[in-house]
């Protein structure tokens, strides 16, 4: 699934083609298409009247934006201090041992109920490997 040029133009137009809205636009395009294609970058640059280098420069700065499709149901595991204090590193090791794909993030704002994790938009507190595996299955539509 990739965004076609018309969709990208519609998104840009909904922000009045304002260059300051670039990050919002990138979020919306990625939400629709899964990632940002070279073609989408070109369309955005044209609509906002900025260079493709400007678009790439901005998107490459931010961890949220992807240039290729990502698998569904990847666990974002908080590895910051408050979760370290309650075993986030050990949980990461258990995820590895159980084949649960995970990326690190730094703070999900759930510091009193760590270790914290997020699967898609779902926040999980006092996470353990079993609950994370269940959340991944759910995100992937495997029941």
């Amino acid at each position, binding site marked *: 699934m990739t965004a076609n040029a018309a969709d990208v133009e519609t998104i840009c137009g909904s922000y009045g083609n304002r260059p300051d809205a670039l990050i919002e636009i990138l*979020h919306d395009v990625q939400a629709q298409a899964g990632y940002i294609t070279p073609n989408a970058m070109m369309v955005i640059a044209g609509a906002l009247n900025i260079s493709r280098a400007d678009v790439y420069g901005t998107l490459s700065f931010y961890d949220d934006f992807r240039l290729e499709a990502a698998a569904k149901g990847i666990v974002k595991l908080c590895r910051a201090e408050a979760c370290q204090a*309650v075993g986030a590193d050990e949980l990461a090791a258990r995820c590895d041992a159980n084949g649960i794909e995970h990326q690190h993030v730094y703070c999900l704002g*759930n510091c*009193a109920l760590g270790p914290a994790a997020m699967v898609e938009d779902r926040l999980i507190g006092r996470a353990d490997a079993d609950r994370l595996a269940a959340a991944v299955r759910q995100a992937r539509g495997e029941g």
Partner: protein
Amino acid sequence: MTTRVFISRDAAALSVGAEEVATTLANCIAQRDLDVEIVRTGSRGAMFLEPLLEVEVAGKRLGYGPVHASDVPALLDAGLLEGGAHDLALGEVEALSFFAKQQRLTFARCGVNDPLDLAAFEASGGLDGLRAAQSLSPDAIVEAVTESGLRGRGGAGFPAGIKWKTVLEAPGTEKYICCNADEGDSGTFADRMLMEGDPFVLLEGMAIAGLAVGATKGLIYIRSEYPHAIRAMVKAVALWSKAKLTPEFEFEIRRGAGAYICGEETSMLESLEGKRGQVRPKPPIPALEGLFGKPTVVNNVLTLAAVPWIMANGAAAYRDFGMGRSRGTQAFQLGGNIKQGGLVETAFGLTLRALIEDFGGGTRSTRPLRAVQVGGPLGAYLPANQLDTKLDYEAMAEIGAMLGHGGVVVFDDTVDMARQAQFAMEFCAMESCGKCTPCRIGSTRGAEVLERIREGQDVDANLALVRDLCEVLEDGSLCAMGGLTPQPVLSAINQFPEDFAVRGNA
């Protein structure tokens, strides 16, 4: 008569099953044909009690928690709707010592009301501050904020009134209010809780700021890791606009995109302009040349959200809370290895020990406390013998620490402080915007040297090297990211030297 039951839809409560509790309760109500309204609130902040279920009986809110969805039928059998006895019964929620000892000004409505119920907001004092401000001149509003002693709650503690005065007096008609909701510090969640639990109070505070400095547009920059808060704020702005509460002041919600550095104010402004979140050199200060080069108030969520109370109740009333040059209340956030974690809003001046022991009940693991990091990833690590330090800006600065955004992260005796020092450098390396060399390169070299120390290589020489590097970071960095990373590193080395030596100084 319809009985009202309250369940939080705060992200933290949802993270431990609040949605399942609400769904199960709704199903049971339907099956048993009961006359019950389920009100979804924000969280009161006693995270250890979430999912917390409250029932209104004779004007009092009685609590049950932490509730699991499977407890719901038994709770109903036990007479939940009349406040019946049950193992999970807590009694009157506001009488619980965790809440009774707090002084809730900013968070008074959080966890109490449906966050998107504008009528309930108004009925509980909402809009009083805005109305008071509307009858005052811009100078008088700025004067009140100055008089209240309110300081920036984002971490730097800069007096809000002075910042507002600078923007008010700056020439030009195009000015902005930018709310910094990029709450990236580990151990902090107060901004998130407030945005989810009482979003209107933030809008009210921003509108007052707009009146004070002559700005007609407010932007709220919320980190993308907070999807629940983003949704709540978007809905709140729509309701606020529909009610035409401040037709002359317009709001816009902007999402961050996973960059910690965008919590730094100039980096946030760059991001709001659609650019890479790279730090700007100061001067010029944002108050004079901020968003799009125009005079801009940049304040944290909690700074802006404190303003309506000040305008409604008077600067002197706010000033009466706190001590020394730290006035009013601070929302402390207790996290990490803590038994009763959550949000504690109280006047400045209680000790770290009171916060951790009286409110927090000690470590969750029940092992001895060894270290506390105050003020986020750039804050110092304090050992157990500094727990009697008072929590205010000056007392913390005196021991080489900082209050920051009020986050307190507790570690037990299993923590490896050399690893924590190394992590501080790694975090700086990962999140550095790359603009200045000390932060960009120094953090990477720092992490490498600390790795060698942990391996026991030339420990003394390498520790000297780390200290040297920290001096360069502190003196030579453009912003607090590089400038403060030495705080956790050096405090770990100075306060916990045994963790840097035991590996054999061969």
